[in-house]
């Protein structure tokens, strides 16, 4: 069948950069799936997008659905035809209702027996008709973090819809979406091009758009930005920091990226680099330029314009950045007049959370918690520093600098603490307290910082969980998933072997007992599930498979570092040892015993050679494990466990566990129970998936 391409563009006012990538992906997937369901699957579906348009190009769609057959059942054959084979009134009525002649009725075998039926050939619908119906539905099903209404207020989308292009081959696919009617034309760049562009198909569309200063491909815009930025930086003897995130955001803020290099007053290079780069990257979305020995007084700005013919854009950006840096210097000097400790009373007025009180109250809890954590991780020697860091940790929230440059929270506190002459572990801890910010971010540099970061995360998690505000689905307004994942990452990176449940219990206990929401034990149980999920993600990233992770986490999840070691040992051991027999044996034990613990076996009731052999091997292995497991020599322990596999196999072949003799039966169960108990201290092998 002849195939044709579908080109679709929905034009809007500026879509937020942060939602563009998701919208592009969802749109391509939605249209691809809809076409497949309708039996007109495309050979490929690609999507593009700029702040002002979402575009789909679905290639090779068959012109028409294949024909199909439908069957409508009527009365039983016996009732439809009289003894003479002539149609009865029932048959005539059915034919009339189906709008066919009686002669067209057929008799078929159905679930109801011999039945009269009407069969029709249903011709396939034209793809253009399928598209006209399916595409508006797909658009309607797109989800965004926030939608809005406009104009008459009847329609809602991420931003107002201003136009629609929909072509199948060279024909317009008729449709109306959110007030816009489909057509065969588009618009170029808002200020760099004029009028409408009539389009005959995909190739024509892309060519004309690019001629009208719109690059529809986000990835092309991003790499153009990075290429030009590198070139502009090199011209002044510098390079740009690798900043893929910022480049991606910039790419989705413009339709036609142009770049301009500007400079700022070199006197600002005296400011701490964190401040200068934050002003550039976060506030102005500029790429800083770095030379061999630090920042250069230049920046690269991306504009939604082809060039800066009059130099207005470069000058404007320079002027704004210089003003911002002047502001920052003023804040920095003002803030430096007072020590951090002098700001603590102000924290009384800064709310941490409506019902959880102020940052002053949080600071008091953090001190206690940081001290307890330092002790638990074996650094009782730094309890004093941990307390100091905790007490001052939130003071920078009320500095002028952090009020203005919120991204510098922590970092500024660290800079001010250093300037005050506080010990290095203390200022570094304050500086690093929010690390890691997310996956791929570094954890705190030193132990005191790691302790403080854990204390802060535990305190927030404990408080919000106590209020019953457990994150669900995509709703996580307090960023608790990231907070918990960061805590797991810290524990893993420092290999701190601690059962963290006790410290979370303490974090919970530091809040008033009468908070509304979950009771402390329920909150802790919820936290256990929540942390186990974060731990699973971390183990998966470390290369363990789903079943290995389940096996490890089932045995215990509160000591993250230990769980990670067990998982690593298990994943590694499975590559070299044959666990299949062992796993099947453990599944069998689970089937026999369920969750019951049948107590200790006794040598008195051993009858068969196979059970004596198993008991002997078990005792020998047990003795070894008692040495290996506490020493966390998990690889050797797993070898020991695997070594019992042959005698377990033999046991199951030769010995009948559920035998008629009650004592023997109980004892055999007890032997298996004891093996399970001893051998599942590293992993629950029954969770492991093997081929039967």
């Amino acid at each position, binding site marked *: 069948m002849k195939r044709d391409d579908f080109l679709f563009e929905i034009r809007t*006012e*500026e879509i*937020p*950069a*942060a939602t563009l990538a998701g919208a592009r992906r969802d749109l391509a997937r939605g249209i691809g799936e809809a076409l497949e369901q309708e039996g007109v699957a495309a050979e490929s579906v690609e999507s593009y997008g700029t*702040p002002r348009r979402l575009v789909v190009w679905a290639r090779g769609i068959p012109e028409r659905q294949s024909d199909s057959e439908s069957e409508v059942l009527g009365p039983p054959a016996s009732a439809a035809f009289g003894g003479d084979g002539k149609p009865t009134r029932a048959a005539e009525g059915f034919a009339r209702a189906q709008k066919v002649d009686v002669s067209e009725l057929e008799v078929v075998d159905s679930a109801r027996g011999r039945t009269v039926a009407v069969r029709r050939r249903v011709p396939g619908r034209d793809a253009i008709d399928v598209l006209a119906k399916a595409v508006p539905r797909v658009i309607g099903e797109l989800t965004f973090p*926030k939608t*809005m*209404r*406009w*104009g*008459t*207020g*009847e329609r809602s989308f991420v*931003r*107002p819809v*201003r136009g629609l292009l929909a072509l199948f081959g060279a024909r317009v696919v008729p449709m109306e979406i959110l007030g816009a009617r489909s057509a065969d034309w588009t618009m170029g760049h*808002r*200020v*760099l091009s004029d009028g409408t562009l009539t389009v005959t198909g995909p190739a024509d569309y892309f060519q004309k758009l690019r001629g009208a200063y719109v690059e529809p491909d986000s990835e092309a815009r991003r790499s153009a930005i990075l290429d030009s930025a590198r070139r502009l930086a090199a011209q002044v003897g510098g390079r740009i920091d690798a900043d893929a995130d910022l480049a991606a955001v910039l790419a989705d*803020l*413009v339709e036609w990226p*142009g770049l301009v290099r500007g400079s700022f007053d070199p006197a600002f290079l005296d400011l701490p680099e964190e401040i200068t780069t934050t002003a550039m990257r976060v506030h*102005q979305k*500029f790429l800083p330029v770095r030379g061999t020995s630090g920042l250069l007084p230049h920046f690269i*700005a991306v*504009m*939604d*314009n082809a060039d*800066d*013919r*009059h130099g*207005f*854009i470069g*000058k*404007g*950006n320079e*002027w*704004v*950045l*210089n*003003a911002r840096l*002047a*502001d920052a210097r*003023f804040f920095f000097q003002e803030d430096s007049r007072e020590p951090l400790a002098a700001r603590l009373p*102000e924290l*009384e*007025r*800064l*709310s*941490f959370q*409506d019902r959880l*009180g*102020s940052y002053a109250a949080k600071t008091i809890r953090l001190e206690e918690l940081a001290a307890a954590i330092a002790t638990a991780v074996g650094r009782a020697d730094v309890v004093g520093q941990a307390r100091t860091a905790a007490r001052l940790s939130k003071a920078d929230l009320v500095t002028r600098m952090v009020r203005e440059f919120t991204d510098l929270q922590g970092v500024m506190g660290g800079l001010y603490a250093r300037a005050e002459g506080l010990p290095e572990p203390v200022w570094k801890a304050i500086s690093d307290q929010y690390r890691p910010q997310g996956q791929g971010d570094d954890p705190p540099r030193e132990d005191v910082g790691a302790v403080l970061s854990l204390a802060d995360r535990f305190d927030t998690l404990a408080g919000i969980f106590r209020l019953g505000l457990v994150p669900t689905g995509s709703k996580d307004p307090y960023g608790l998933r990231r907070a918990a994942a960061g805590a797991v990452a810290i524990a893993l990176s420092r290999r701190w072997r601690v059962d963290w449940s006790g410290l979370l219990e303490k974090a919970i206990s530091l809040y008033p007992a009468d908070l509304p929401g979950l009771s402390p034990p329920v909150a802790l149980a919820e936290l256990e599930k929540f942390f186990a999920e974060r731990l699973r993600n971390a183990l998966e990233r470390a290369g363990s498979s789903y079943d290995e992770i389940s096996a490890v986490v089932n045995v215990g999840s509160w000591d993250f570092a230990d769980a990670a070691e067990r998982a690593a040992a298990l994943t590694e051991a499975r590559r070299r040892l044959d666990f299949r027999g062992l796993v099947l044996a453990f599944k069998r034990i689970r089937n026999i015993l369920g969750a019951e613990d049948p107590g200790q076996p006794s040598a008195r009731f051993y009858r068969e050679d196979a059970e004596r052999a198993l008991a002997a091997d078990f005792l020998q292995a047990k003795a070894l494990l008692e040495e290996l497991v506490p020493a966390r020599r998990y690889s050797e322990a797993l070898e020991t466990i695997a070594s019992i596999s042959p005698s377990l196999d033999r046991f199951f072949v030769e010995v009948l566990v559920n035998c008629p003799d009650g004592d023997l039966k109980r004892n055999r169960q007890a032997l298996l129970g004891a093996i399970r108990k001893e051998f599942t201290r590293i992993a629950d092998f029954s969770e492991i998936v093997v081929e039967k």
Partner: protein
Amino acid sequence: MLTLQKLIAELSAFWESEGCLIEQPYDGPVGAGTMHPATFLKVLGPDPWRCAYVQPSRRPADGRYGQNPFRLAKHLQLQVVLKPSPDDVQEVYLRSLERLGISAAEHDIRFEEDNWESPTLGAWGVGWQVVMDGMEITQFTYFQQAGGIDLSPVSAEITYGLERIAMFLNKVDSIYDVLWSESVRYGQLRKLEEEELSRYYFEVADAGFAALLLDRWEAEAKSALEAGLVIPAYEATLACSHQFNVLDARGAVSATDRVGLIRRVRDLACACARAWVSSRAGIPVLATEPEPATAV
């Protein structure tokens, strides 16, 4: 060089030519042009409305003793309300910049996501900050809700930060260097006021008095509402909102108080909005034109 007063005149003339009524500033202290009844009340209900006005916006906590080149206890906004929001509202806005001599093709003008919310007014909207050559010059909002009521039709609200734009056009590094007129700079006119307002709000203002005023204005708002007087009730609500800002600047609002105080003001604003909608149901936004007096 475009002076501040010329800037205001040009923008007003532009929006007048776009069919906007030129309103006058609200005659009491408000934190933003949105609080003017010409926005807050007029965006409610079904009738079309287009207006523009300058609103001095008073934010005591933003006072910097005249020392900060960017921050003021009292700044100027030029507020435009277009109801319903027209389809070409962005293009019309860009033309308003052209009127100021800013050609979009020669600059970098971007609409970057920035959603607006006023907890004290029970109001929020979706939109952008308009960034020109790296500088925020306008807040652009599709008003979704006011006084807790979903708005339909939806108004577009365009708020120009006048000092920012003037600084940009004058290429000066401090608000105080902006030319107000050809011969008078912003600082000559306003610096003393900024110093005194800052000192007053941060050091002198009697927090007990402000708290008392807040209580009393709240009671006034309620009794005005009971008497069916929505506009005075709303004005009393604005007075409460201002007293809250005074308390906040004075450092007299604790974390726990804050939530409760904001809720009290919001409750009033929501009650006013509901009363306005029900009292105005079926009545056009402008009173019916009176018969012209006929000469005898």
